[in-house]
């Protein structure tokens, strides 16, 4: 059964490659085949998780380099693969109806399946090199899918038209957003690549394999000790973390994700819930334990895991504040993703800082699971809302609860999970992170986490209030007048997000039952990778936990109450001017604008400066003299050419022509001459035979 783990990631990629072929038959064949391939991957993932033993299944790849391709079946990869594959499948089902009337569908299905396949590859890969293939594949697909509407029609833009910060326009067309995502994540990827090769170069024997890298630790001359000797261990780990920072949109590379909303909503759901941003968290989860042991050996744990935790916590807070003022429904959700991923990073960082590695580690991964489920649901529902109201701005929606009851219920359930209200799954997992931070004595991180809880509850309530409560906005009433009745989504779209919302509630209700076994299951990752990490069991429920539960729930309730009073009770008016604090948050703390100012404009200015001072100032002044020299030189070489080279060539040609003329005489076509020549030849031959050979 060793073929099964391979099928998980090869099936979607095969589906992608076959998509253009299926498109030749019929549009429907193509659509349903694409969905079938993603379903195949999900089924393979589940069967593998339950039937295939944890192991590293390898086949030779480049024998000369002693390099094997392999899939690593272990609890971590199985846990993630199942989340990714099943949520991706539901998003694919949703796409069937959502994308129906759009153009470029063959391209869409191709990249969707390729996206899923690459994500699964990156999770399943047993070595850093294969992982990097998947990693870059995910980047490429995200670029293509974010820029899907590359005709850049105004309705597909992201941001408020006409808005600008520090003189930088704050509205972007899809093609620009795709490029932005690609370039920003690339910065992190370069750092990641450097780190991968540093680790590869110092490992003995050289290897990319996780298991081998882990088993080399603690021995003399291991990669960790070599790097530590040069003082490169922490820098390498931090460079490695650069990749996840870019991919998972963490500070300072978080700016691409809000603009990635320019793609179709199903793509946003895929990027936020199942693929792409989860890749970074996964990679920290995969290499985190290995780095922890490596750093522990040389007492350098704090700089790396401290950075991870603080980057995560700061990003969580930063994005939550931005979500509190956003106008576009997808942007609220995008900021919220950045914020929630920040939580996960914080948990993984706290894992290394505290005595109990497992607590933070499992909290981060469980948060990944619950976030994937409720965020996918929220996005898919938001996609329908945007479609129905033909606007991406929340203040052009309003009062939708009556028209689309099930959608509003679904969004409410998923939203409560996002807020962290018991008993939804989001509550448990977010609380596990906060308690891990608290128990690890990282009180400042804990405080930032709590503040973010308050903000999260506030912006989620605000989003739900503006969108679904109150009276319909002018835009919705206009639509009604035009006869475009705002109504419920079709079944193919409704079922996926409703199912995910209910799953979010169900997983929350059942959490006390499965959390223990699931954590133990995830602990199996260490058994496989880093056996020495099996320290500290789950401490169990205590009074502290109860207090922490109460604190976070209380703050969430406060956030909910503020949001409820402001946005459910009163009609929402979009502020005409963004000033003061709101303006600061609205313009994303001006980080985006500053990046544009420094990097984009900086580059443009530098190029212009180069043009003016170097090109015009130096080269253009030099060029007349150079040109004259060049002309002189050319003239000289021209005369040399005609007098020497040409003459030689002509002479050769003339000699050839003369020789040919000579030969031509023999080709007279007169038979008699040929006969005479023949007779003379024979006579000469005879003379030769008689007098030369015969004389011997």
């Amino acid at each position, binding site marked *: 059964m060793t073929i099964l783990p391979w099928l998980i990631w090869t099936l979607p990629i095969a589906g992608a490659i076959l998509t253009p072929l299926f498109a030749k038959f019929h549009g429907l064949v193509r659509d349903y085949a694409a969905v079938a391939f993603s379903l195949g991957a999900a089924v393979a993932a589940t069967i593998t998780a339950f039937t295939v033993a944890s192991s590293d299944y390898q086949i030779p790849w480049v024998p000369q380099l002693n390099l094997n391709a392999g899939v690593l079946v272990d609890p971590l990869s199985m846990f993630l693969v199942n989340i990714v594959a099943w949520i991706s499948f539901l998003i694919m089902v949703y796409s069937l109806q959502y994308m129906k009337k759009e153009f470029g569908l063959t391209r869409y299905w191709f990249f969707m399946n390729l996206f899923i396949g690459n994500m699964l590859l990156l999770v399943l890969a047993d070595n850093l090199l294969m992982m990097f293939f998947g990693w870059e594949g995910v980047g490429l697909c995200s670029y293509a899918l974010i820029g899907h509407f590359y005709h850049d029609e105004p309705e597909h833009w992201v941001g408020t038209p006409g808005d600008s910060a520090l003189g930088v326009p704050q509205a972007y067309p899809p093609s620009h957003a795709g490029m932005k995502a690609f370039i920003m994540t690339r910065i992190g990827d370069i750092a990641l690549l450097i780190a991968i090769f540093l680790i590869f170069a110092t490992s003995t024997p050289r290897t990319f394999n996780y298991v081998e890298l882990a088993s080399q630790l603690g021995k003399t001359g291991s990669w960790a000790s070599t790097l530590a000797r040069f003082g490169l261990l922490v820098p390498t780990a931090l460079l490695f973390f650069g990749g996840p920072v870019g991919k998972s949109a963490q500070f300072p590379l978080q700016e691409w994700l809000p603009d990635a909303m320019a793609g179709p909503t199903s793509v946003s759901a895929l990027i936020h819930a199942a693929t792409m941003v989860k890749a970074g968290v996964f990679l920290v989860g995969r290499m985190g334990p290995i780095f922890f042991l490596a750093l522990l050996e040389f007492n350098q744990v704090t700089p790396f895991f401290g950075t991870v935790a603080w980057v995560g916590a700061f990003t969580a807070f930063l994005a939550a504040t931005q979500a509190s003022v956003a106008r576009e429904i997808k942007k609220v959700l995008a900021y919220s993703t950045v914020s929630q991923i920040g939580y996960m990073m914080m948990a993984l960082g706290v894992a290394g800082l505290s005595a109990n590695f497992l607590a933070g580690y499992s909290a981060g991964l469980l948060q990944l699971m619950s976030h994937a489920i409720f965020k996918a649901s929220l996005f898919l529902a938001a996609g329908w809302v945007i479609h129905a109201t033909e606007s991406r701005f929340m203040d052009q929606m309003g009062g939708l609860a009556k028209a689309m009851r099930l959608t509003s219920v679904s969004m409410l359930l998923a939203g409560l999970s996002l807020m962290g209200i018991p008993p939804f799954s989001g509550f448990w997992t977010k609380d596990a992170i906060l308690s891990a931070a608290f128990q690890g004595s990282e009180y400042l991180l804990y405080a930032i986490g709590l503040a973010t809880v308050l903000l999260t509850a506030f912006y989620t309530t605000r989003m739900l209030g503006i969108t679904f409560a109150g009276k319909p906005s002018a835009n919705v009433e206009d639509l009604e007048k035009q006869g475009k009745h705002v109504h419920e989504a079709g079944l193919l779209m409704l079922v996926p997000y409703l199912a995910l919302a209910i799953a979010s509630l169900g997983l929350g209700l059942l959490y006390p039952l499965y959390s223990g076994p699931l954590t133990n299951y995830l602990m199996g990752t260490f058994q496989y990778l880093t056996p020495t990490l099996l320290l500290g069991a789950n401490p169990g429920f205590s009074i502290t936990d109860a207090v922490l539960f109460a604190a976070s729930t209380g703050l969430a309730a406060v956030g909910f109450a503020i949001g409820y009073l402001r946005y459910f009770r009163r009609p929402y008016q979009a502020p005409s001017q963004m000033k003061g604090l709101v303006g600061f948050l609205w313009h994303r703390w001006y980080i985006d604008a500053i990046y544009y100012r420094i990097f984009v404009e900086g580059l443009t200015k530098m190029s212009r400066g180069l043009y003016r001072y170097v090109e015009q100032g130096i080269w253009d002044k030099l060029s007349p003299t150079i040109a004259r020299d060049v002309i002189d030189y050319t003239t000289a070489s021209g005369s040399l050419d005609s007098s020497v080279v040409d003459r030689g060539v002509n002479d050769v040609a003339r000699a050839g022509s003369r020789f040919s003329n000579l030969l031509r005489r023999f080709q007279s*076509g*007169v*038979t*008699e001459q040929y006969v005479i020549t023949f007779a003379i030849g024979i006579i000469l031959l005879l003379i030769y035979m008689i007098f030369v050979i015969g004389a011997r």
Partner: protein
Amino acid sequence: MEPITSFFAVSVILLGIGIYGLTTKRNAIRILFSIELIYNAANLNIIAFARLSSPPLVTGQVLVLFTIALAAMEAAVGLAIVMLVSRLNVDIDLRKLTRLRG
């Protein structure tokens, strides 16, 4: 004079006449005759060598029978061509048969 020398003498004379005819005559029939003479010079040589070798060989005669047959065929084909040419051109002067020249 040894017997073989007289055979060779005849053979050389035949060859000489043949080559002379080939080089000087323009009439197609005469040229065919000349070719026939050269053939026979060769045949005579072969038979003479076969007859005078010791022990005498029959292969020479057999080979020459084949050559005669081939020469007859060649002459027949040649004459047929010449006849057709004469019908088309009236003249059978080979110098004037330039229609096939490239």
